[in-house]
């Protein structure tokens, strides 16, 4: 098998071409040349600011049925979900129409004192109580909850399914670059700006990987500088110069050498940017602009006990807004938010692991609830941070989206857990999101709930033992929305891709057999989907 790399491409060309052709041959990918003049990704709008995207990847497959809960479905019951059921509150029935319920705890009650599904006011759906801090975002009209999201011929392998969500090509493992990487390439900025897309975590996720430009990943921005022997200012300068000289060396092509070259360059070109931002604990001074949860203004990024909800006053663990095990995540979230706010970066993201709840998933409390608390507070914190501390990015310039590879079985297993299944739920927030809107009488003019009951459900949620929860392979929640439609809508209408760019970012986007843009049947498995949800 031949590996076509840069050198063999050059040599093959030289066997065909003349000397003049050789001299002008430069290694610029065609796709980048083409992108320079197209679309507005990364270009300032009339207000002088660019649109940005923040993603939170829930790795391990989040149980969508216990995230956006179909309280109105009779099959969502204690028989099917014996130990993990989220009950509906007789005192605050889900049938009520209006705003999402936000049970504020005030200064004395436990933060997560309310243990029922939080009515979303569309007459059918509720939020898991661990997501209570989504309610204020929802009620501000800045949150869309989208249920029944998946893709054709759903893989139930974590790794394949995460690959498909990230490479934007379901059932295709031959696509080795990520869809947000491709969006950055299309921006034409990927090799011009040192930072275009950034993730904070242990490794660069596939969604940002690609071979022609380096996206940036940091695990710990507080340690992002180099050392030298001797470890003095002079020694460090000497080591930097030596590294630069070594980086300029030419070598024969091998499999990973382009990757190493790009990432070494990225390291060199971003060290200084990060050195000018204060990622220290002392720099974590961001607080809410109101009395949070009816108590006092809380820190937005809980990274210590004293910055975790209302704990600082009475040293009461019941006043935490997130579990203490979440501090690492909020360090990452804070860093990613700061980078998006303070630098040229267009995309930032983090991952939350641990959603593979095969056993002891828990209901209103327990392992999934502990993870959902991270998600709810993360989105709340991002909203407040980009409103109160906005610099290069304001809340109206931003969209925050959650991703998760698939949902979980509608029926609980013998371990109090759920196994791999199909459709799950996505959360999308941002100042420009078309979420809930009240009418003049306080009723619902527009709901922020997509695909989970209510009036705005294009393919209605069928209830009961043969309903939506069991319509995929007679066992699982059936999708009615493709994740690519959600991401495609955001990449085009928010980030600013043209339709032809979108076709390159998400291959097949315009193919009628995929029904990604408009409602139709996806021919791969003959499933009807709504096309793009009207999000933005």
């Amino acid at each position, binding site marked *: *098998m031949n590996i076509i790399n840069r050198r063999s491409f050059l040599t093959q060309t030289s066997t065909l071409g003349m000397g003049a052709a050789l001299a002008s041959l430069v290694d610029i990918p065609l796709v980048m040349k083409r992108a320079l003049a197209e679309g507005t990704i990364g270009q300032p709008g009339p207000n002088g600011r660019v649109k940005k995207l923040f993603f939170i990847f829930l790795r391990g497959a989040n149980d969508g049925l216990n995230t956006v809960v179909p309280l109105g479905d009779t099959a969502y019951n204690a028989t099917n979900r014996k130990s993990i059921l989220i009950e509906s509150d007789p005192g605050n029935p889900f049938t009520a129409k209006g705003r999402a319920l936000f049970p504020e705890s005030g200064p004395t009650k436990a933060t997560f004192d309310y243990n029922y599904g939080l009515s979303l006011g569309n007459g059918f759906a509720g939020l898991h109580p661990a997501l209570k801090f989504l309610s204020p975002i929802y009620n501000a009209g800045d949150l869309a909850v989208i249920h029944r999201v998946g893709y054709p011929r759903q893989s139930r392998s974590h790794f394949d399914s995460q690959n498909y969500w990230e490479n934007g090509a379901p059932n295709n493992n031959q696509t080795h670059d990520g869809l947000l990487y491709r969006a950055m390439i299309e921006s034409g900025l990927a090799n011009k700006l040192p930072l275009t897309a950034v993730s904070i975590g*242990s490794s660069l996720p596939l969604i940002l990987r690609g071979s022609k430009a380096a996206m*940036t990943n940091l695990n710990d921005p507080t340690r992002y500088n180099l*050392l030298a022997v001797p470890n003095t200012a002079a020694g460090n300068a000497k*080591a930097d*110069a030596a*590294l630069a*000289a070594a980086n300029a060396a030419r070598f024969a092509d091998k499999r*990973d050498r382009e990757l190493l070259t790009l990432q070494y360059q990225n390291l060199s070109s971003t060290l200084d940017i990060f050195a000018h931002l204060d990622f220290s604990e002392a720099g974590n001074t961001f607080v809410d602009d109101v009395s949070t949860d009816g108590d006092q203004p809380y820190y937005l990024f809980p990274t210590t006990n004293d910055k975790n909800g209302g704990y600082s006053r009475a040293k009461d663990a019941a006043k935490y807004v997130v579990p203490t095990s979440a501090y690492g995540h909020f360090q990452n979230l804070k860093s990613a938010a700061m980078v998006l706010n303070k630098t040229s970066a267009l995309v930032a993201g983090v991952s939350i692991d641990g959603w593979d709840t095969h056993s002891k998933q828990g209901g209103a409390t327990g392992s999934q609830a502990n993870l959902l608390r991270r998600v709810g507070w993360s989105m709340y914190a991002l909203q407040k941070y980009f409103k109160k501390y906005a610099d290069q990015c304001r809340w109206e310039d931003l969209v925050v989206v959650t991703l998760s590879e698939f949902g979980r079985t509608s029926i609980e*297993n013998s371990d109090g857990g759920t196994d791999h299944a199909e459709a799950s739920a996505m959360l999308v927030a941002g100042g420009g999101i078309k979420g809930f809107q009240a009418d003049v009488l306080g009723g619902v003019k527009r709901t922020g709930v997509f695909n989970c009951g209510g009036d705005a459900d294009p393919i209605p949620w069928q209830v009961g033992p043969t309903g939506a929860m069991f319509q995929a392979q007679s066992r699982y929640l059936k999708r009615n929305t493709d994740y690519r439609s959600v991401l495609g809508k955001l990449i085009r209408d928010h980030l600013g891709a043209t339709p032809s760019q979108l076709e390159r970012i998400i291959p097949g986007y315009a193919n009628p057999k995929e029904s990604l843009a408009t409602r139709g049947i996806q021919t791969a498995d003959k499933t009807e989907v709504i096309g793009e949800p009207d999000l933005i």
Partner: protein
Amino acid sequence: MNTFPNLHLVRLGALLLACGFASIRGFAAPLVSSVQVEPLSGKATLSFEPSPAAMEYRVLRTPRLGLPFQTDTSGVLDQFTWTGGLPAADSGFFEVEAIDIPRDSLTGTTLLQRVAYGPSPDDLERVRLIGPDAYISEQLAPETILESIDASAPAPVWRKVTASGTGSSPKLYIYLDGAGETYLDDLRLIEGSAEDASKPNLIVNGTFETALGTNWIVSTNLIGSALSPDQVHQGALALHVVSSAAGSSETTSIHQNLPATVVATKTYTLSFWYLAQPAQSARLTVRLSGSGITSTTSLAAGADSPQPLFAKLAEGSATMSELRRWHLLHAVQSKRQLTEVLRQFWENHFVTQYSKTRDYFDNLGYDTVTAGIIATQAEFRENQKWNDAMLRPNCTFLDLLRISAESPAMIIYLDTVGSKGNGGNIANENYARELCELFCFGVDNGYDQQDIVQISRIWTGWSMDLVASNNVANPFATRSTNYLDPSVVTNKTAVTNVLGTWSFVYKSGNHNTGIKKVFFNHDTNGAATTPKLVPDRFGAPWAKRDYSFSVAAATGTNTIQEAYKLIDHMANQPFTQEYLSVKLCRLFVHEGFQIGYDFTDADTSPEEELVHACMLAWENPSNGGPKGQIREVLKVIFNSELFRSHQASQQKVRTPLEFVVGTIRALRAARPDGSYTANTDGDLAFALSRMGLMLLFDRAEPNGYPETADAWISAGTLAERLRFVQAALMPASMTGKGDGGATTSIDPAALLQLKAPSAVRDSALAVDYFLDLLFPAEGRANLGAYRAMAIHWLDTADDGTTASPFSALVPGSTDYDTRLRGMVAALMTTQRFQEQ
């Protein structure tokens, strides 16, 4: 694509250059990328692309094509550009050749990069001497390699310390920072910045050969100290230092008022030998009053020995941190390098998660520390079983799979521990899915969701319990009734009061007793119809085989056999053969191997052919033994052209584990006294964590840690790799040392003195020695830029610009040592050192 035949002389490129007008035409392997001709001046410049592993490039020329090409000696070759004159008349024809490093040397390096955790100076020499085939034979028979690192208790060892500084005072102190003892000998203080045996010793009776008398004054906390013949470095006596409490100055030390004049304006060098011993934890300080010269040294020896760790692991009292240290020390030190690489491979293939196991036991009522120790034990036990299995010549994949399936770590990790299929219970699918997807067949390779459900039922009852030590291999054992505190036997559910070992136990009451039909086709109602057949793409001997598996309805303890029979059945299916062959090829050769080749069509590749050859060796082993022998498959890989050629050499990037261990090994040579030029106590897990969260024995996701470069390499993880290398090369006291492991000690000056004494004061020779050591497969002709950078480093001061010839630095001086350390660190922070 260029192919590199088994020749040292590789034709790299050829260029036709006609004088007076330029025209270019490529030949067979045209790597010449550009040519410029200035007809008026008669000057030609020829550029070419680097060729892998080139020791030397040569430009050849001939005036006419009918005549033979001759090596050009008139032009100037600078890395990948040749500049020279054109013939005065007629036309000229040029050709570029690369002289490759010897093939065995290339293969030998690949072996040490993949079959071992990177080359060490000694291993490089050895493999060059014995050749790659002998090394492969040896590593494929690890039971024949004598290995005693777990058995040999660390011995006391004499170590030398030197320190330079100013003469702040003529008072010398010797003390410990706590209770402890050591022996001290040959204590010298001389004038000058480096040790020099010819200079007079300013200390009286520094050899401790005569009575302490009045020259040495002993304080009360050191009153047990005396001259002793028991341990000496030289001569008949040494000073036995015995400390009952920490010292700090004149009244708490053994001190001497030097009769010689010592002045603060001059530089002096202190040196001495001391005995490091395993049981000692105090630190020895020898210093001048004031802060002119201070040396503080740990008295502990044997921190780099796995033996004490192994002893704790074997008795079941070790923590995870100790298991990780032991694992890393083995990777660094073991002579059975292939077995070490494979131990990690199987650990990672049959992945389990320490913290999930620990939390499980924590929830059973154990305290966190005990829960951690039990969880560590579970990890160590399965790991040792794989190790023992691999020491048997005919070890099969099934042997290894069975160890994994029976391991409490796995039973907890993938949730079979509580899975029930009796009555209306729905079995947990976690293990069933990963058994197919990750342990045997590979994703979507010969199974579907119906098979997962059927297998999940087979696995119900596969649990564990706390059994008596004579029952660990009995899956029907009941809970041990040996109580820690017999007075509280009434509370029999309190497992924390029971003595025993958590072991695999089969709970038939939880088992699904129905019929199971695995690997069948299904009708639209989900009912099993016909058996599944091996797809045609596998070809002979596999295609169209019925690989279905059925279980009749049954109850009772005998239903344990269902799972055993199923893994017997799955272990040697072509899907398993394919998936594991691909994984092993990716581990040892490169990442470009796929699942799903059509082995029957005409479209093939060396990668596909190698996978096929591995599968055939699995199916029909040449020794006639059982199917699935790991060594039979490895032999095929190690003997393949792909493995032995440029196709494998330096085509992978090191994982964090490989990078950290490889860094230490690269500079670790044995000295004549049995000590090493690079040492670690193995406490490096923090570095692996920072380089991308590679938590050994504690992977959260069941797919194990990746082997691919793009999963590990990003700006943030590279920063951590570079910090690690720099810190590892720092001397003990330098700020930032902790990043490389506080006790990691690497001595490049000692290495150079040991292996290339003629290079000790020559910057070019010293650089060449380290280039060969650190980049043995790259070819020196490709390392010109690295070489220039490194020589520049050695010959400039810390500012990188002021000339300061390396040859003027005194070996043994701090300046010399720092300069050399800095250069070696700089070479190891380069892109090429990331590769294997």
